[in-house]
């Protein structure tokens, strides 16, 4: 069954390969429908297939590559800055309306100092 597709042959072959390797032949088959009359709000025949291919060959692998990059980069562990009681840091003009009023909402005991210094005594982190 040959359908007129506007995307180049290369994408078609690549798409087939990706679909097969991802076990998506069944879905792929469903997508290859004719558009009835011209009543599809300007959707061209098979344009959803183009976006499907883009999702699985560009979008999701792109996310995967960035995940790998982020994971490799953060393996070094977080170094926390030395505590210097700068007046422009850890400003407390009004107390926070939760807890003891002295901790920010996303307070991290290891990485965030209070106005007096870090909460955990030990320095070797």
């Amino acid at each position, binding site marked *: 069954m040959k359908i007129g597709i506007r995307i180049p042959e290369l994408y078609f072959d690549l798409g087939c390969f990706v679909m097969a390797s991802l076990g998506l032949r069944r*879905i792929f088959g*469903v*997508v290859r*429908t004719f*558009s*009835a009359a011209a*009543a*599809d*709000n300007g*959707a061209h025949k098979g*344009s*959803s297939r*183009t*976006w*499907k291919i*883009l*999702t699985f060959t*560009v*979008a*999701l692998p*792109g*996310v995967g*590559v*960035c*995940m790998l*990059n*982020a994971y490799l*980069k*953060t393996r070094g562990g*977080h170094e*926390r*800055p030395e505590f*210097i009681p*700068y*007046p*422009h*840091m*850890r*400003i*407390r003009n*009004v107390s926070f*309306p939760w807890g003891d009023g002295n901790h*920010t*909402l*996303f*307070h*991290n005991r290891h*990485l*965030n100092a209070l106005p007096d210094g870090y909460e955990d005594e030990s320095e070797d982190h």
Partner: protein
Amino acid sequence: MTKQMHAFHMVNPSPWPLTGAASAFMLTSGLAMWFHKHSNTLIFLSMILMLLTMYQWWRDITREGTFQGHHTSLVQKSLRYGMILFIVSEVCFFFGFFWTFYHSSLSPSPDLGMMWPPKGVIPLDPFEIPLLNTAILLGSGVSVTWAHHSLMEKTHKDMVISLSITIILGIYFTLLQGMEYFNSTFNISDNAYGSTFFVATGFHGGHVIIGTLFLTVCLLRQLMFHFTSSHHFGFEAAAWYWHFVDVVWLFLFISIYWWGS
């Protein structure tokens, strides 16, 4: 039976605009009560009222449009204008936060050390998690476009899959941002850097959550066969909103994360 001789939708009387306005009033005054008087009763009540209003008002709109046929193409056109204007107002909202960021960062004041990032602030590496977040949102823009096309081409299963992928990416973004918030060495009380960073990215994150919920409602509606291949404005509105959220992130990434580091 009387026919209406016009294409407009004369909405039946409804209490939701009133309850919505009341909840908005109580939210704002409740926030002041919470911050300054340490009392959270008002804001708690207003949250409940707001959620009830949202659920019932949008349920009514779905009934009027999908089941009762009131959404003629003219009505749909007005809904489109409405959504576009709302998104424009949101752009204005974020414009303010970008203004304040550039105001503080372009000529940093002496008490920050006349440098940006200020002395003592260690910014996040933009090419770790923030870059991943950029890829996530851009990728979700591709998958939501796939969802739209498959909706127009009547491939139900594909639409469900692609919309689910979009929602999962949205949730992943939110989880990563939450993790970043907990693992940053600076916080909101660290001068103008912290204020601009957390207010701008915080409001953006709130909008991501709202967009994800909007898309989830669309998924549920699709599973209940509310949408047709030619009439699915609710989904289009959700997709527009999602693209807006993505664009705001791109500006945030370039301005605050990358240039500001």
